[in-house]
C-alpha cells in the first residue's frame, strides 16, 4: 500500500485529507508541522507528502528544502496544499522541488486528478 504523510497544522484539514487519501487507497500518517514531518521522513520516506505552507516551528517550504537535501530525499512526491494561491508562491514551491500544487479549498476530485497526472493512480 502506498504511504502518504499529511503535514498541516489544522487538525480539521488533516482529517479531511486523510479521509480522501484513505479512500484512494493510501495508508496515511500525520504531522502538525515541518519539523515533525522531517523527523518522520528521516525514519522512513513516505511515497507522497501533502504539505501545507504556513505552520509553526517549521513551515512547509523549509521542510521541503530539508527533505530534498537528505540522501534519497528526492524520492517522495510532494504536493503543496495551501491557501497561498499566487504565482510567486507557486513558482517558489516548484523551484524548491514540489511536484504538484493544490490551492485550498480542495476536494477529492482535485486530489484524484493530481494523483492521476503524477502516475500514482490509474486514470
Amino acid at each position, binding site marked *: 500500500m502506498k504511504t502518504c504523510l499529511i503535514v498541516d497544522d489544522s487538525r480539521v484539514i488533516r482529517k479531511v485529507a486523510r479521509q480522501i487519501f484513505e479512500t484512494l487507497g493510501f495508508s496515511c500518517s500525520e504531522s502538525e508541522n515541518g519539523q515533525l514531518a522531517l523527523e518522520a521522513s528521516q525514519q522512513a520516506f513516505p511515497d507522497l507528502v501533502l504539505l501545507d505552507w504556513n505552520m509553526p516551528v517549521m513551515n512547509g517550504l523549509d521542510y521541503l528544502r530539508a527533505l530534498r537535501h537528505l540522501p534519497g530525499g528526492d524520492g517522495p512526491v510532494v504536493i503543496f496544499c495551501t491557501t497561498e494561491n*499566487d504565482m510567486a508562491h507557486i513558482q517558489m514551491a516548484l523551484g524548491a522541488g514540489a511536484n504538484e500544487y493544490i*490551492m485550498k479549498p480542495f476536494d477529492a476530485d482535485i486530489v484524484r*486528478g493530481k494523483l492521476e*497526472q503524477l502516475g500514482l493512480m490509474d486514470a
Partner: protein
Amino acid sequence: MKAEDFDLLSKIIHQRSGLVLGPEKAYLLESRLVSIVRKNNMKTIEDVAQALRIKRDEALIADITEAMTTNESFFFRDQKPFTLFQKNLLPALVTARASRKHIRIWSAAASSGQEAYSLAMICAEESARLQGWRIEIIGTDLSRDMVTRAKTGIYSQFEVQRGLPITLLMKYFQQIAGDKWQLKDSLRQMVQFREGNLLTDPGVSGSFDIVFCRNVLIYFDIPTKGRVLNTISGLMPPDGSLILGGAETVLGISDKFKVVPGEHGLYVPAGAPTQTRASA
C-alpha cells in the same frame, strides 16, 4: 407540472438539442425553469408551455434547452485521449500531412472550452515539431453562454485545478484576480469558438483530421446519436480520427465508423485501412 406540459417541453428540448428527458426528469425540469419563468414575466411553467403552443419563440426555446443541458467539463478530462492525441495522433498527422503542413481539429460540444484549450496546450508543448505548421482548433457548442465563456478563457481556481498540471497553469495562464485565471493570448489565439448545433447546423465546414466529441452523445437517443455520427463522418477525411467519451461508442449505432482495437474511445472512418494508425 401537468403531464401534457412536460410532454410538450421535453419534445421541444429533444427536437432542438437531442437531449432525452424521461418522465422522472419532470421535477428537474420544473426546478431549472424557475428562472426562465421569471425572466419572461410569467407566473408558472404552464404559462411557458402555453406561450410555446401559441408561438414558436426561438429565444425561449434556446433558454429552456440550455437550462437543461449539462455543461460540466475539465482540462485533460480522462487524460488518456489527450495522451493518445499527443503520442499517436499528432505524430501520425505530422507525417501524413507533411506536404500540406495544415491540421484541423474540432472539439464538438466544447462546453466552456477546457477540451479545446487542453489540445492547444499540447500543440504548444509540441511546437518544436510544428514549426511552420498551421494548426486550427475549433470548438463549438449549442449554448451561447458556454461559447461566450469559452472565448474569454477565464476559469475559477477550482476549474484550473481539475485535471490541469500545475506546470501548465504556470506556463499558459495568467492570474487576473485572486481566484481567477485566464489563458494567455498566445494560447487563446490558437482556438476559435462558435455556436453550433450537432443536430442541425454544426457550425463548422470543411474537413477535420481529428474530432473530439465527448460526453454529449450519452444524452441522446440512438437515432439522434446515429445522425450526429453521420454528420461528423461527412466532415472527416478517410484517415481522420474520432474520439468519443468513456461511456460512448459507435457500435450498433453507426456503420460510418469502426473501432480501433486496443484504443478505447478512438474510432476511424469505416473505409480506413486497418493497420495505418496507433502503431506507435
